[in-house]
């Protein structure tokens, strides 16, 4: 009962923090897509770059989130900037990896067909390879987004706001209901985004006629 009372009392704040959290997640995921998809194309085109790029993105994943935030605070200060920086770095690996996997997975016959009828390499990438790889790329973006929602709760520690504020405040004041509010809200957001992007992925597969292979 206490918990429901708390939710009712803090309705306005909940909406505001949810909004902040969404912006933090959205901006970071979007930036990770803008960097990650081209990187995925690069590592597919030039095999020599694959090791270093995937290696770097992999090492980033092993750095604990709190340590990463602390590291980025040094050059970027407090607030939203280092938070977004950290979130982008974490989101990169699934996007780069899936872009690479998606592009490599396009049927060789189809690529030869594209070359044979006279696509330029750029046209082939834009009109054949990326569309056919899209569902796999979207799946990577989906993973990245879910990771981002989770890690974004930690960025409250460096003053970036979001649902993590409830958790941090709950911890410091010993108010477990406040902690639960932050955790539940972030989990629901992660699940909804996962489901929503999953729908996009499914819709794309249907559109690309990849769901009823004989």
């Amino acid at each position: 009962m206490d918990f429901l009372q708390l939710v009712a009392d803090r309705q306005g704040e909940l909406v505001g923090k949810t909004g902040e959290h969404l912006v933090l997640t959205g901006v970071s995921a979007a930036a990770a897509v803008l960097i990650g998809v081209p990187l995925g194309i690069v590592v597919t085109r030039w095999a020599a770059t694959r090791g270093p790029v995937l290696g770097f993105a992999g090492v980033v994943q092993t750095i604990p989130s709190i340590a990463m935030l602390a590291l980025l605070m040094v050059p970027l200060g407090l607030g939203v900037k280092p938070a977004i920086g950290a979130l982008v770095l974490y989101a990169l690996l699934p996007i780069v990896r899936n872009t690479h996997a998606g592009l490599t997975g396009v049927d060789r016959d189809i690529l030869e067909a594209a070359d044979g009828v006279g696509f330029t390499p750029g046209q082939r990438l834009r009109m054949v390879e990326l569309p056919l790889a899209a569902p796999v790329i979207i799946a990577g973006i989906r993973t990245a987004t879910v990771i981002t929602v989770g890690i974004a709760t930690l960025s409250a520690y460096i003053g970036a706001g979001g649902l993590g504020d409830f958790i941090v405040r709950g911890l410091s004041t010993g108010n477990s209901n406040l902690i639960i509010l932050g955790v539940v809200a972030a989990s629901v957001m992660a699940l909804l985004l996962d489901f929503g992007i999953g729908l996009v992925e499914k819709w794309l597969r249907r559109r690309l006629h990849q769901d009823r292979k004989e």
Partner: protein
Amino acid sequence: MIAFDSVSKTYADGTPAVRDLSLNIEKGETIVLLGSSGCGKTTTLKMINRLIDLSKGTIEVDGKNIMDQEITALRRSIGYVFQGIGLFPHLSVAANVSVVPRLLGWDKARCRKRAAELLELVDLPPGEYADQYPDQLSGGQQQRVGVVRALAADPDYLLMDEPFGALDALTRGALQQELVKLQSEIGKTIIFVTHDIFEALTLADRIAVMHEGRLHQVGSKEEILKRPATDFVRELFGKPARQLKLLGEN
């Protein structure tokens, strides 16, 4: 005319695929490159539109060296039908057919009209098939789409790389007959690769027999059946020739 002059292809690992091939392909003829797998026939075909680059010699298309032409322009000017069909699964039948015109910058209405015209030509009524997707078609229908896609920008030359190889015998026979009929209407120069002797005999004006990268003989069906130039050609056609003779005696 397509002219091969002493053309060789050696792969990076040193394997020779085609050795010193000279061959003139005349305007309007259907020439079949015949041989078993690894004989160099597909390599020969793919050197024409530079899916594979030759190592030595020259290939001229209508008097122009292919190495002097812009590669995408060269490819768009030559129709190509693939062994693996190679339709784009994410594009509708109409979009597949008009993919080359689109690359050439034709407007939407003209592409649409051309696609309808071509689908009509191979008995795929556009009203029914234009907006379907490749995976909704049978293998035979897919390859019909593959054939007309190659014709979309009205190229003078059509390269066909074992296009009917993956189809069942019945469908293959039907498509061969359709190609003969189609060819009588459109009069393209067709270079057709196959390992199937009967397919070669059905389609060819001239047959070029290849073996281990060398051209053994090129000539009309009669010439090759009656006067095989090498032991290999004699062996290859021995059986069908005997069967044909048997049929003739009855």
